[in-house]
């Protein structure tokens, strides 16, 4: 079976401490293009919601004259979601509270530049 061009990138992100899943999703329709998630993670639903959040943030930032969204982070009591986008593609990670968000952020922003 042929690997997607994002497989290696997602595997690297998923090796970060506390990361339970990562995927590339289309912001326009919320469909996951590729994913690397642990068993039990509802990748499709989360991908769609993360894409929708990214779209809302992008539109709000556009309205406010803030420029392009470079990174988005949704925090919850026991973890959260990070997203970094480029054009229509959004790189999303799901992490537990023990994840090193600073390191993950740097890695994701670097990886997002390579999304095509």
């Amino acid at each position: 079976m042929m690997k997607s061009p994002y497989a290696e990138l997602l595997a690297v992100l998923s090796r970060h401490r506390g990361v339970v899943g990562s995927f590339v999703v289309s912001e326009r329709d919320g469909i996951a293009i590729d994913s690397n998630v642990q068993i039990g993670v509802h990748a499709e639903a989360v991908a769609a919601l993360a894409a929708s959040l990214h779209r809302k943030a992008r539109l709000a930032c556009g309205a406010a004259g803030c420029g392009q969204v470079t990174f988005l982070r949704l925090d919850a009591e026991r973890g959260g979601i990070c997203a970094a986008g480029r054009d229509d593609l959004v790189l999303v990670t799901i992490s537990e509270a023990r994840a090193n968000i600073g390191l993950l952020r740097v890695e994701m922003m670097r990886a997002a530049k390579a999304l095509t």
Partner: protein
Amino acid sequence: MADEIRRLSDDLARDPSSLVFMPLADALRRAGQLDLAMRVALRGLDRHPYVADAHDVLARIHADRGDLERAADEWEMTLRLDPSHEQASLGLGFVDFRRGNFEQAEVRLAAARDGDPGVATALAHVRSALAARSAGARVPASGFDVPAGAVVQPAAVPTPAPNGNRSTASERDTPAVATPAPSRITEYPPPDPTRTRQLFAPVLDGDDQMAVLVDADGLVLAGRYLDATGSDVSDIVAAELAGVSSEAERAMRHLGLGAWTSLLVEADQSVVAMTPAPMGSLMVVAASRQTPVGLVRLLLDRALTRARDWLARVS
């Protein structure tokens, strides 16, 4: 004492943005009403976070409550804002003394400026304790109490300096004018269309920071959002953010990660942070890209506290 508290409460009710909260909080502290004193001091600091005397008052309240750690934090903050603040040096000396760090207390008090009888008396107690310990005698447990503090005078409201920071230079010099006023402490503007736009101004630190409270339907409740040209884009930003709360909630439910607490968006020009607020509303704070992300989160917490109080009052 009761008359003094009533008069100061009236003064604060007449001008909630004044620094009268400092003598009021201190008077409440001296009257033993520590919870109320704490509330008044914290609300005052919400508006005037860079007034050294206000942190000194809060430190004394913490000390009276027996919370030496927080008292020390506040006195250290006081000294950061005003390195010559003798009451803060006295306070930290008191904390050192209570912790048994007599040497450190002596160094701190000796470094304080000469001429303050309170510092001199405290220094004498500390040296006496040191001598007693050296001689193997029993060290007196008392003799150095929570600093009484100088009589804190209310002053003019700090005005933004040209660089966007609050000025502090003359904040302790101008006495407030006392005139009769209704006897109640109130700090939040009523739901007046023009005043609610300014609701979050006291918790923001510069012109490049904005805060807006958005209801569940994407309508602005309070605050405002200006774009780079100075145009008010609050309504359109609020509309674009409608539904963020519910989507964040759904995403977290799918993942089983608990309730969502904040959403941080970094963009080319700004950092925008939001968090769920009461009644399904959304608190949004934005700052320039140069602002550290951690500070944006702190601003968000401060704005949320203010939004909660305001919503409780107007709803």
